């Protein structure tokens, strides 16, 4: 089957590609780039004036709830949600039930996702059952297909275990993804500060994150391992990562759209959809996130897509679970807040949402070249739309962005011989 993308801007900073052209896909592969005509009866033609075609977007921090909480999200619904958000690849966190701490579960996930448009890469647990006691079988997990390792939800429990894990992971050159939070300072449920004091809500101090970022950076330097800081959220943490990079320490970092847009002030509503971990911080921190994205201290934008059932989000504030959906709003928020507000160029955004996460995980970056598999996202940075949670493909509905007006929307998601367009999947081979 032939698909012609007409008048589209081809943009891939990894290839130094930035030009407007037509692109022809035949049976899932890029067959021609240039000035191309195609008769409607020979295939599908999309006039994509104003749209950009980039290497398929990649979200390296997604919580699929399978196995364990299939009522909240499954590998299938999470992948559907990713495609709807313009993502052709995701990495899924191991805090499932059971945790991704055995090769069987890695294979189970890969197998279940294998037919899908979206490539799903499991992240293995660092410790067995994520308990922070003994190392999970990291080599076996890696061999089965795990691309990184994390005890996300909590930090690697002890310095001792962290050291071992970083040493051990050098054998497979995979990063350790750290949820940075000092357990002893982790009693609260929102950012500690003037707002938590007024609201009488137990606070999570920013220093709890900073301490673990510092610990991990020093350990990465000492051991020579690779650490990736998940969902960075404090000004100090960004500063620590920035200076570590200057010293040549192998550390990378990601930020979520909510941490570069929302602040703790918004919790005055006690909306449990604003409860997340790390918590929403202050405007000063938000500004530091944007600064970090601009100067490269922060490499990646990732959603920390965390589906939760409606019942659980209707718990009382201090009992509600942390986390919000992210896949279907991430591109729109990023374009609205970073591109349209002139903080990042589109090429920089493609780096943060596609190129860098793949490089960190050691995955090839899709190339926009004749002969390559079409692994592409087409988006219109200027399309204005309103978020409607009822239309989400995710199985859950927990987002604080419902009804929000965004500028920038995915148009087509193409990968593995399939295309997602206007709410539907179709085969293109």
């Amino acid at each position: 089957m032939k698909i012609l993308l007409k008048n589209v801007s081809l943009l891939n900073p990894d290839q130094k590609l930035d030009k407007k052209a037509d692109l022809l896909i035949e049976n899932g592969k890029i067959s021609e780039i240039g000035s191309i005509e195609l008769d409607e009866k020979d295939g599908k033609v999309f006039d994509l004036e104003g749209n950009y075609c980039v290497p398929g977007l990649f979200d390296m921090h997604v919580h699929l709830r399978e196995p364990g909480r299939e009522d909240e999200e499954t590998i299938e619904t999470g992948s559907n949600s990713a495609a709807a958000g313009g993502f052709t690849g995701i990495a899924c966190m191991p805090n499932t039930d059971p945790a991704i701490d055995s090769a069987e579960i890695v294979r189970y996930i890969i197998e279940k996702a294998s037919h899908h448009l979206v490539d799903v890469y499991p992240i293995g647990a660092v410790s067995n059952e994520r308990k922070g006691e003994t190392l999970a079988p990291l080599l076996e997990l890696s061999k089965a297909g795990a691309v990184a390792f994390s005890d996300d939800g909590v930090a690697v429990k002890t310095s001792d275990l962290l050291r071992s894990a970083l040493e051990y992971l050098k054998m497979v050159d995979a990063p350790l993804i750290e949820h940075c939070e000092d357990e002893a300072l982790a009693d609260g449920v929102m950012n500690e500060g003037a707002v938590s004091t007024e609201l009488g809500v137990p606070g999570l101090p920013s220093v709890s994150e900073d301490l673990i970022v510092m610990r991990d950076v020093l350990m990465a330097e000492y051991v020579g391992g690779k650490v990736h800081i998940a969902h960075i959220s404090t000004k100090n943490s960004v500063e620590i990562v920035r200076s570590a990079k200057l010293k040549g320490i192998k550390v990378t970092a990601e930020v979520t759209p909510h941490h570069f847009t929302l602040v703790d002030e918004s919790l005055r509503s006690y909306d449990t959809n604003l409860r997340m971990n790390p918590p929403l911080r202050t405007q000063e921190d938000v500004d530091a996130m944007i600064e970090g994205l601009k100067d490269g201290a922060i490499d990646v934008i990732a959603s920390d897509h965390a589906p939760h059932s409606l019942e659980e989000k209707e718990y009382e504030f201090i009992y509600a679970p942390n986390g919000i959906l992210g896949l279907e709003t991430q591109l729109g928020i990023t374009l609205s807040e970073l591109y349209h507000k002139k903080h990042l160029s589109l090429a920089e955004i493609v780096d943060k949402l596609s190129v860098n996460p793949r490089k960190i995980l050691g995955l090839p970056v899709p190339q926009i070249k004749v002969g390559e598999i079409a692994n592409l996202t087409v988006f219109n940075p200027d399309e204005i739309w309103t978020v409607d949670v009822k239309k989400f493909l995710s199985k859950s509905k927990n987002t604080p962005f419902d009804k929000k007006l965004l500028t920038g929307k995915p148009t087509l998601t193409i990968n593995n011989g399939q295309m997602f367009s206007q709410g539907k999947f179709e085969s293109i081979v």
Partner: protein
Amino acid sequence: MSLSSRHLLGLYNVPKEDIQLILDTAVTFREVMERPIKKVPTLQGKTIVNLFFENSTRTRISFELAQKRLSADTVNFSTSTSSTKKGETFKDTVKNIEAMKVDMIVVRHQSAGVPKFLTQFSDANIINAGDGQHEHPTQALLDMYSIREKLGKLAGLKVCIVGDIAHSRVARSNIYGLKAMGAEVSVCGPTTMIPRGIENMGVKIYNRIDDAIKNSDVLNVLRIQLERKAGTSIPSLREYHNFFGVTEERLAKKEGEILILHPGPINRGVEISSEVADGPNQVILNQVANGVAIRMAVLYLLGTQN
């Protein structure tokens, strides 16, 4: 005259006129309480549910008494375990109770924000009887009532709240209410019990009890409890008493009068000495009586509003 809101969720942003109205209305009910027949028919036919997710016999009894004296029908629902832990959500629990056609809900809960959350799905008037470490507005109102009763005013007075400010809903409501009424508010306690950013609420901070006594007209002394993390925020109750306890000796150094309040229950020999707790400066038992009058006033004003 009526209140500007149909709920009493806290004293944050509550206008001075509303507080004034509650305090003035309470004066009338305080008089009713001195009569041989202490009952008025004002809320006859109204059903009020006391929804207590956290144990508090005193506050519940005070509300119940206020409701009985206003001739309302009262239902008590008390549980110390969170409904969510029993598999039923808080929302379900409340919806069930509401289906029985209640007019007002008095709620106490471990989680900040619960009274506000209730307003999103209940048509009843909601009265906050304490939510987490957030607010306890009727306590602050009765504290203000007791001060005004004794000193004749609130505006211009220097009131210091002493104790574990970080974990106190009484402190927060008092700060909002007293400031709205024109008092100067300060807090005093060990640095570990003073929450970050409290100065944004417009209060002065004392870390020495002698300074607090010296510079205040009123001390509102909070109960000190050794909580779960005992030993990390203060070393011991003994040390607290030695450095922050309100004692005769310390009060004796004060030039001029000082009024002592305590929301109870008292830990004699910890935050306050027995002599002070029973002494001439305190109004602790008045506070208890005034509490009923304040709650009658709040229930009356919300229950008869249109």
